[in-house]
């Protein structure tokens, strides 16, 4: 007979009802990976500017294309989400906000902040164009 482990087990994702808490948690990681890829665009931007007008125009042209705009939209939303949820994590690290009601409250606040900040950045950005 085998002795059962007393350690807590990870939830089986196939039978686990999705919740705001778990969804926001995995979303933090997904946006993090996406943003890490986005840093390549940041590098391309400054390298193109340092290289010369033609290279810079090529990168600006790509950013101004439909694909570029889609990437920029995803990138800005991911950044605001990761930023807001990261601040939420820093509060947890400091020991605040662990009550379940507060975890949900801050979770919804992160979603609202992501939407509002993304919208604001795009409205201002498009007006300035």
């Amino acid at each position, binding site marked *: 007979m085998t002795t059962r482990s007393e350690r807590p087990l990870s939830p089986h994702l196939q039978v686990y009802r999705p919740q705001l808490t778990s969804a926001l948690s995995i979303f933090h*990681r997904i946006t*993090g*990976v996406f*943003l*890490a890829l986005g*840093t*390549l665009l*940041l*590098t391309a931007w*400054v*390298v193109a*500017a*340092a*290289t*010369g*007008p033609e290279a*810079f*125009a090529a990168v*600006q042209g790509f*950013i*101004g294309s439909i694909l570029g705009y889609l990437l920029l939209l995803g990138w*800005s939303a991911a*950044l*605001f989400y990761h*930023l807001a949820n*990261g*601040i939420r*994590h*820093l509060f947890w*690290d400091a020991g605040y906000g662990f009550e379940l009601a507060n975890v949900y409250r801050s979770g919804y606040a992160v979603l609202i902040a992501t939407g509002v900040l993304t919208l604001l*950045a795009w409205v*201002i*950005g498009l007006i*300035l*164009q």
Partner: protein
Amino acid sequence: MKAMRTPASRVRGLGSAKTGTQHWWSQRLTALAMIPLALWFVASVVTMAGADHAAFRAWAGSPVVAGLLLLLIVTTFYHGYLGLQVVVEDYVHHEVWKLGTLLLLKAASIVFALTGVLAVLSMLFSG
């Protein structure tokens, strides 16, 4: 079968000793630094998105902007590597693949960060 190795020799090299909190702290401190840096960068992208080359060079050539760009690039790639490292350690279980992926990610982070830093410095010093 009796193991011939001491408990210490079996765990040596598998995890950290004395530096266990270093990764955690580095990730949090870079996160804290990136709150103002990221907000500044988004504001910069919003205002500079439609800029032509001359306007961009004039902007990036100022010491304050160049300094902030350097801080942003170094902090972002460091924070990004720390995060990707945890993701790889969580999901890649084959020791050789894990080590290879981590080395590749570390090399790529250093190469791209250095490329960005050199680009900013060349714009700063060439005016």
